[in-house]
Each structure stands twice: as C-alpha cells, then as structure tokens.
C-alpha cells in the first residue's frame, strides 16, 4: 500500500494512525467522524494536501505545523481550541473551524493564499487579523459573537459573506455593502446558493434546521 494517494477512513473505528506512518505518497486523507487519538503518525506525510478531521475527537493539532503542503483542512466540530500550529501552513487555501471553541484568529493573519474560511459558531470577537488575507473570497461568520466587521472592507477578493445570527449591526452591514458593491452578504440561510462549497457551510446543519 506504500503508493497510496487517497485514503478514506471516515466513520470507521480506527483509533491509532501508526499504520499510516509510511504512506509517503499520500495526498488526501479523510478521518471524518473517527475517534483517532493523535496526529503524530502523520508527521512524515510530506505530500499531504487535503486533510479532513471533521467531527473527530481530536483536540490538539501541533503536528499540523509540520505539514506545510496542506491546501485544504477541515477541523469543523473538533475539540480544537488552539490553532497556533496553523500559522506555518502558508499554502492553505480552504479552512473550516466551524463549531470549535477557538476565540481568536491571530494565527491566520499571514495565510495569504486562503480563499475560503469557515468560522461559523466559533467564539471569535475580533476579525481584524483577517484584513491582510489578499485571496480571501468566501467567508462564513454566521453565529459568531464578533461585534464589528472592521477590516473586512480591506479584503480585495471578498465575494460572499455569511452573517446569519452574528452580532454586527445593520448599519455596519450596510456600510460594508456600500464599500464593496461586488460583495454578496447573506443573513438568511434560505438564501444560500445551492452550489455552495460544503466546507464553507455545513449542509447537514442547514437541512436539519430548514427542511425543504
């Protein structure tokens, strides 16, 4: 199996990743909804570009700082609360931290290739560290406590912003719309485009709350 490029173990009973240590050609790894007990066995997977840990019980992600080729990373609904390891992942293009207990995004401020960022249901108060993310196009801030959208007007590529259930005042949203006429702001989940990237908006949550 040493030439394996894609591996999907989602929903399996795997706990220990030691058997993956030598999969040096691995590019995509899906561990969604597993009870894995640590990421250290992944440390030498130098070709890994896509990693899905959604709904796994992982709490500590320091090993990720060594996986610099990562482009797509899903940490939604994990137990992660500290994301400082992500600051070295400068190739990241898509990142979801939905439903985690993170309180700040300082670690993301130099991830200039980031195109999609999902912070729904996190505990973010301050979005200003995002202001230098030159490539950021899709941003989900639904259900976050951030009271101000200060900094977002500086994002040149921003096209789609979710604000459902977050605290910014109507006046501030209107100002952002005026400053950025090409930006689509979504405050009601029923307006969500059908072809939305699931990493940006958890489709399962959406259909549970708004049955068709």
């Amino acid at each position, binding site marked *: *199996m*040493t*030439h*394996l*490029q*894609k*591996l*999907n*173990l*989602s*929903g*399996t*009973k795997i706990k220990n990743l030691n058997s993956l240590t030598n999969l040096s050609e691995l590019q995509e790894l*899906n561990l969604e*909804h597993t009870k894995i007990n640590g990421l250290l066995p992944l440390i030498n997977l130098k070709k890994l570009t896509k990693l899905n840990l959604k709904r796994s019980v992982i709490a500590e992600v320091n090993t990720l700082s060594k996986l610099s080729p990562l482009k797509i990373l899903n940490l939604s609904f994990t137990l992660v609360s500290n994301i400082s390891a992500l600051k070295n992942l400068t190739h990241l293009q898509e990142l979801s931290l939905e439903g985690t207990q993170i309180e700040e995004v300082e670690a993301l401020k130099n991830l200039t290739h980031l195109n999609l960022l999902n912070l729904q249901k996190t505990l973010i108060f301050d979005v200003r560290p995002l202001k230098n993310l030159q490539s950021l196009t899709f941003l989900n801030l639904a259900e976050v406590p951030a009271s101000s959208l200060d900094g977002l007007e500086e994002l040149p590529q921003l096209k789609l912003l979710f604000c459902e259930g977050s605290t910014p005042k109507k006046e501030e949203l209107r100002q952002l719309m005026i400053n950025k006429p090409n930006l689509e702001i979504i405050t009601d989940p029923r307006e969500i485009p059908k072809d939305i990237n699931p990493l940006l908006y958890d489709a399962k949550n959406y259909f549970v709350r708004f049955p068709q």
Partner: protein
Amino acid sequence: MSQLRELKLSNISMDITSLAGLVHLKKLTLVGDLIFHAEVLKNLGQLQELNVVSNLSDIDFLATLDQLRILTLSDTSLSNIDALAKLSQLKILNLSNKRRS
C-alpha cells in the same frame, strides 16, 4: 460473457459464485447483502477497480488481487485490513462507513 471488462450489480441478494468465470474483469461494483462466498473474487486477477458496499467482515480474499488500483469497501464491519498491505498498486482506498455505529 467471459470477455466482460466492467460489471456493476446493485441491490443484490443472490449467489454470485458464477462471477468466477469473468477472469478479464477490470472493474467490478457490488452493492447489497452479499450472500456469497467472497472467495469467488480471488479468481479475478485482472481487477483494477473494485467497489463493494456490503457488510463484509473478512477480506483475506483480496490479498491476491495485486493489480488493484482503486478499492472501496464501504459499510463493512472489518477489524483487520492486513490483507491490503501487499497490494502494491493501490492508489485510492476508501473504507468509509456511512452506517455509523
């Protein structure tokens, strides 16, 4: 039918021992309650892609399918995948389980 290269059987609940003769199969998909002796697949040495969605518990029969490049074994109750270690051509492996316990 012995020249058949691709075969897909969905929602099956039948004996598939007759597949043994399809020695040229390169791609095979089986979905359903496989009431069969899985060892029948041992004979399909040309298989490059095998997709099985079924409650398999034993996959020792896969060890000889050394041409496999793509393998999906979904909704199984496997506790051991040692049989896959020797599949040197394997590029894509999907063991995902949607019927979550």
